[in-house]
């Protein structure tokens, strides 16, 4: 007799959940394969191939959740785990004073698969290793370079979601990424410059379409330039932020602040709450009229565009901030009714079979404007152009933040001049977005994905993509990060 199918295991679990009298139950069965090749200082330091499979059963019993999971996909363990999830829900229900009520969602039966041209699994390892070694060789050709890294990563998820409501969803999802870094030392001062692919739901074509030698030469050259650059002077500057940099600013200050579970206090003990309490919905001036932030979990290729979330809710597109006004949250079936919404936005995700889903940031992007990048820069007398991601920190209310970057160029009288280093800017979220004075057009739009967004206890890693065109911010407080001991 062969191994039981996922359909049989799902039916087995949900039958027991129904029989136990639960009002709702679901099961996620998942098999994840990750390959990660890491080069360091010309050598291939590690090649890991990880297979991770298991299942999680979530049960709502008298308004309380229970969740149990196991890596043992067997006819013996599935009923044990299903029964355990029921018992956990019953225990939680015995002390609950407020009941969970789920927003309605139509029953779905669907299959979602990532569209790709080249399966990374079939690309020979030798080819991947050669690519990384050649990339690092290019980095080390430049004088003053002391360290390099080059990485390739892909992840394939096969997943089934099945609920007691009748929803059955099958997923075959792929994501690919790669990166390069170069570290230079000049007169005892070190600096690192990086290149990151954007973590997209694509195949190995994302790697092949990238000109690795060109990017390697550029990051090496700019690492040396960065190490030699003068430190920035403290002061007030206009900032032009590139899409990769903005993706992190959007993530931390706009994404997390608009997660409804945080607004309701669910994350108070770890990731924190948010200054955007529900009473501000629809009226609060989050930013200038140039700022429209749209959550789009339907955009092909992006990390959160998985067709459906882990509540079995269909992915959607909605406004978070419309012409500066805060108008929307990321929600789940559990929290949506708490602000009077009849349907979840479909942003409830677990980081794997072993985790209970929680509200996650959607694919929130800054809607492009009409200017060109040159026009934005031409409009700046004294400013800084920032590329890439560096230091970042934000308070537990997503209100006071501080960001660095990967590379910085001074803007003088409308022209990008020379590189500076150690730029740090800080601000208060709505004040900062209120200073936005223009966003570049669609031709400059780029997307960047995140796979290590930490939230929840035990902590889970969320996946989402943020898109933006370069944007101009007026009169931002800049300080030099680190002034010696």
């Amino acid at each position: 007799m062969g191994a039981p199918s996922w359909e049989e295991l799902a039916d087995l679990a949900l039958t027991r959940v129904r029989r136990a009298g639960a009002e709702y139950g679901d099961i996620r069965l998942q098999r994840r394969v990750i390959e990660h090749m890491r080069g360091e200082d010309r050598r291939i330091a590690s090649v890991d191939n990880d297979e991770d499979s298991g299942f999680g059963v979530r049960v709502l019993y008298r308004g309380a959740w229970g969740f149990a999971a196991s890596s043992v996909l067997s006819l013996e363990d599935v009923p044990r785990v299903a029964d355990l999830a029921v018992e956990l829900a019953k225990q939680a229900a015995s002390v609950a004073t407020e009941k969970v009520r789920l927003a309605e969602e139509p029953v779905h039966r669907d299959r979602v698969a990532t569209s790709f041209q080249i399966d990374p699994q079939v690309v020979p390892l030798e080819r991947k290793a050669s690519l990384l070694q050649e990339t690092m060789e290019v980095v080390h050709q430049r004088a003053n370079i002391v360290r390099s890294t080059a990485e390739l990563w892909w992840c394939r998820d096969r997943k089934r979601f099945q609920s007691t409501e009748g929803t059955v969803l099958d997923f075959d999802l792929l994501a690919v990424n790669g990166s390069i870094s170069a570290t230079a030392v000049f007169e005892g001062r070190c600096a690192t410059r990086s290149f990151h692919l954007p973590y997209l739901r694509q195949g190995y074509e994302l790697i092949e379409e990238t000109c690795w030698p060109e990017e390697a030469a550029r990051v090496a050259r700019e690492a040396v330039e960065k190490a030699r650059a003068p430190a920035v002077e403290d002061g007030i500057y206009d900032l032009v932020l590139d899409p990769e940099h903005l993706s992190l600013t959007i993530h931390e200050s706009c994404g997390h602040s608009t997660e409804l579970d945080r607004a309701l206090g669910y994350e108070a003990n770890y990731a924190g709450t948010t200054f955007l309490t529900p009473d501000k919905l629809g009226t609060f001036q989050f930013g200038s009229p140039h700022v429209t932030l749209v959550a789009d979990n339907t955009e092909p290729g992006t990390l959160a565009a998985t067709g459906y979330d882990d509540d079995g809710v269909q992915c959607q597109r909605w406004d978070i901030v419309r012409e500066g006004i805060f108008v929307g949250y990321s929600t789940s079936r559990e929290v949506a009714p708490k602000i009077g919404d009849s349907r979840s936005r479909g942003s409830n995700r677990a980081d794997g079979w072993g985790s209970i889903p929680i509200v996650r940031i959607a694919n929130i992007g800054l809607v492009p404007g009409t200017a060109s990048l040159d026009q934005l820069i031409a409009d700046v007398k004294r400013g800084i152009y920032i590329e890439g991601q560096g230091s970042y920190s934000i308070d537990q209310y997503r209100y006071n933040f501080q960001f660095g970057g990967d590379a910085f160029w001074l803007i003088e009288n409308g022209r990008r001049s020379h590189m500076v280093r150690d730029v740090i800017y800080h601000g208060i979220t709505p004040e900062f977005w209120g200073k936005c004075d223009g966003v570049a057009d669609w031709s400059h739009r780029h997307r960047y994905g995140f796979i290590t967004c930490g939230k929840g206890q035990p902590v889970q890693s969320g996946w989402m993509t943020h898109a933006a065109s370069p944007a101009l911010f007026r009169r931002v407080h800049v300080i030099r990060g680190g002034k010696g001991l």
Partner: protein
Amino acid sequence: MSQPFAKPWFKMTSREEFRFLVDVILARSTGDHTVVTLQDEQSGTTRFANNQVIHHVDRRCSRLTVTVSFGYRHGTASTTDFSAGAVQNMVARAERIARVAPEDLEHLPPPTPCQFPLRETARAETIAAGPTRRLEYANEAIGLCRMENLMGAGIVSSSVASIGIAADNGLFGYETRTEAEFSITVHAGDVTTITGADSIRTGSMGTGWSAASHRSIDHLRIQERTLVAIDKAKRSRDARELPPGEYPVILEPAAVAGLWCWLIQALDAKSYEKGTSPVAGQVGKPLMDKRLTLSNDPGHPDLLGVGFTQEGLPSGPSTWIDAGCLQHLAYDRFTAQAWGIKEMPTLEAPILSVQGSLCGTIGDLVKQIDRAILVTNFWYIRSVNHRDLTLTGMTRDGTFLVENGHIVCPVKNFRFHDSPLRVFRNIDAATVPLEAVSPETRKMLAPAMALPRFHFSSVTRW
């Protein structure tokens, strides 16, 4: 309260079962060397917020990993499926990688087998505890918050894990490790009810936090920790805004640990060798206040010491910073061999201590201080400048102004901008080492410290 579960824990992989799996893998592998590791963990968390249990979860995850090498070529594969076919497939995947991977001249054969020290890494009471015990603890904390008309959010978690490492050269280590954790954030503030929604805490809210972590679930001290968080939350209402700038501070142990974990990460030997470390050239030289010592004590009953490391090396006591001077770096095996380091020190059970006349409690330390900002904890600590280890982060869940030996008022949270390499050069006063647990670090023992200068770069108005 419902009845305790009949079988709170599913059976874990035993030493004999691990040895059997190792034998199967070694028999299958054709590599010059083969290293096998096991992590089989059963864990559970009861999570609460707004005085309600929101998640009551349990998870079992078993993982085998194998690294196969042919000369200097190596490959690693892992699986969560322990069936014969899956284990065989894992070995085949690792071999496939190892056969085609470029030579890595830093790759070394497995460590020489040795007798790993026996440590008390598992506590029977934690193994026996399950969801019922966690729920009772969560209810205890919630009940205390309700009695004060405050809102609590937190977790109670416990886990048991079978950890193993073995290699073809006879290396073999296996131990069971348990861990239990409690943390709570208490909110005290005005309640605003909005249409169609729950009660939301807004306005001039005060928050307080406390946490504990231990091999034994009996040592979480739920009531004591919850009362600390409640006290801080009540004291934190209506915080006053002070301007940013240089202040003397009293850092509680969690705040001290939050800064030290970044310093410990900066001790990487390879970065030191390449000249990119913030402590480059500092081994053997004064790095800190000369009364400071950082040591590793894996046998300490209140720390999370282990018998062996992930690399298969024995853990042992060591002194990393002695009288303010840096003694050791964190070596990878290749760098250690290249530098002729025979015994690689480990730092999984850190104790930071200050020599001299010390206070027994944080309260006693506060009494000695004329004026300072008292910091309960830091949040979202990140590097700003790697060269001088300048860090940033926010104060969180209990920030107060101390004057004339008393807490006089709460203050709004500050963002800091400073380097542990600077701030720990001079210590005004300290306590004995106390439990330090924070989201930024694993557990360590660290004193609360009064420091003369600490740079707060901005203040939040929320």
